[in-house]
């Protein structure tokens, strides 16, 4: 991944958050507080705005900056969580253009940071339930000899499956947990936006 691809990824996320803003809000309306669409939209708009004049030296720097911007502009639970994910991933990258395996390792670092910050385990009905299977699928595809584009495409599918698989779960973290068993039957908004993040990576990688 080079800086151009990283930029493209981030732009594709912003496009996806714009397109799916209402859907994310409606999902959050059912078991949360109806702001997830606006939060992600505001955050990635801010990211786009800072990217205009920002000339990073590395993908690492770029992702750290994305994370910081999210923390400064999103708020809510998703701001610090996504912000930390991007910052941790960026910090885990080398200063040079990372290959697919280095990107995977960095994304693992991002997931670890999210889990440390939010203390969510898989199955708690959070973004972790899309993030983790996405990385596992990414890794499997690389092991099977796939390139970044193939790995990203498989990760995106796995993230979507993971998001959908949150429907029958009872939430144990975040706002949805207040609903107890009534959180069952609804898809987690954060897992859904995580699927969009991986979908955007697949789009950007495929365009190469």
């Amino acid at each position, binding site marked *: 991944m080079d800086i151009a691809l990283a930029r493209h990824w981030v732009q594709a996320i912003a496009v996806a958050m714009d397109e799916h803003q209402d859907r994310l809000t409606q999902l959050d309306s059912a078991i*949360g507080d109806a702001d997830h669409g*606006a939060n992600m939209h505001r955050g990635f708009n801010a990211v786009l705005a800072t990217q205009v004049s920002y000339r990073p030296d590395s993908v690492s720097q770029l992702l750290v900056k994305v994370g910081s911007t999210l923390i400064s*502009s999103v*708020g*809510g639970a998703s701001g610090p969580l996504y912000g930390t994910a991007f910052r941790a991933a960026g910090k885990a990258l080398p200063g040079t253009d990372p290959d697919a395996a280095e990107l995977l390792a960095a994304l693992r670092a991002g997931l670890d940071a999210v889990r440390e910050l939010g203390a969510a385990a898989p199955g708690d009905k959070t973004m972790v339930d899309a993030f983790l299977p996405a990385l596992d699928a990414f890794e499997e595809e690389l092991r099977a000899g796939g390139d970044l584009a193939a790995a990203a495409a498989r990760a995106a599918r796995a993230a979507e499956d993971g998001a959908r698989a949150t429907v029958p779960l009872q939430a144990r973290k975040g706002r949805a947990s207040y609903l107890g068993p009534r959180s069952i039957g609804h898809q987690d908004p954060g897992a859904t936006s995580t699927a969009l993040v991986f979908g955007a990576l697949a789009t950007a990688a495929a365009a190469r």
Partner: protein
Amino acid sequence: MKKFLNTPESVLGDALAGLAAAHPRLDVDVAARVVRRAGAVRAGKVALVSGGGSGHEPLHGGFVGTGMLDAACPGEIFTSPVPDQMLAAATAVDQGAGVVLIVKNYTGDVLNFRMAAELVADEGIEVRTVLVDDDVAVTDSTWTAGRRGTGATVFVEKIAGALAEQGAGLDEVAAAGRRVNELSRSFAVALTACTTPAAGKPGFDLPEDEMEVGVGIHGEPGRRREKLGTARRIVAEALAAILAEPVLAGTDQALVMVNGLGGTPLIELYVLFNEVSTQLAAQGVTIARSLVGNYVTSLDMAGASITVCRADEQLLALWDAPVDTPALRWGG
């Protein structure tokens, strides 16, 4: 969606500009989203900063002023503010004696304030955090994000604010805030869902004869749905949940708030308060002080919350201490 607004995106900015225009004694930075006391503050006073998502007005901006908060950080609607705001607020109001952050227990608020606390500490300012988690509707904290922070926030801000105004030190102010939180429990009921400007429609549908029991202040559904009951029955249920908390066992006098969630008229809140007063009296609890009105709201939700804080003379003296904010004003 039936609301007075220009665009859904501009609600917060417009409302903050309105807050500034209405209250010359507030210094509102609309761009930075920080509300602070306009006048001079005694050097060496411990500073109190709170904040949270908007949509709960008058919380928190309406509690900025002498004897209560030094600054408030309003987030977007139902969205925790960002660490930058909190840092800006804390550095602006620190008088050299440190800053107490009053944080309602929601994942977003906790994470953002935690990051802010680090940033503030990096500036060489001493920080303490008081977490408010008074809502008894959320019971099992190992299966949830823990009890929510709701009505007790007003009590914490008032009492810690009074102590800070009287010159107490950082740890003392934080300890008092934590103690008020520990002694307070709340329970809320909703008759309608609220509508966020972003969603444009109510968060849930509720049949004409049903209510949501155990709701929070973010428009989420409650723990369960019940047939709409009389004021008497609703209060009995709320008080049963509240008084079952071990910390309130043996309460003889209390500070009580009957709080409207935004769409409930005052006359109904007085009907509820009458029940609270009668039923508490029957259980040997005297209401020493009270608030009845809209203090911690959930946009246009029709509903109400009841908060009971076990009170002693020291706590009541701090409650009675002068306060001068847009939403609470007495003494002086």
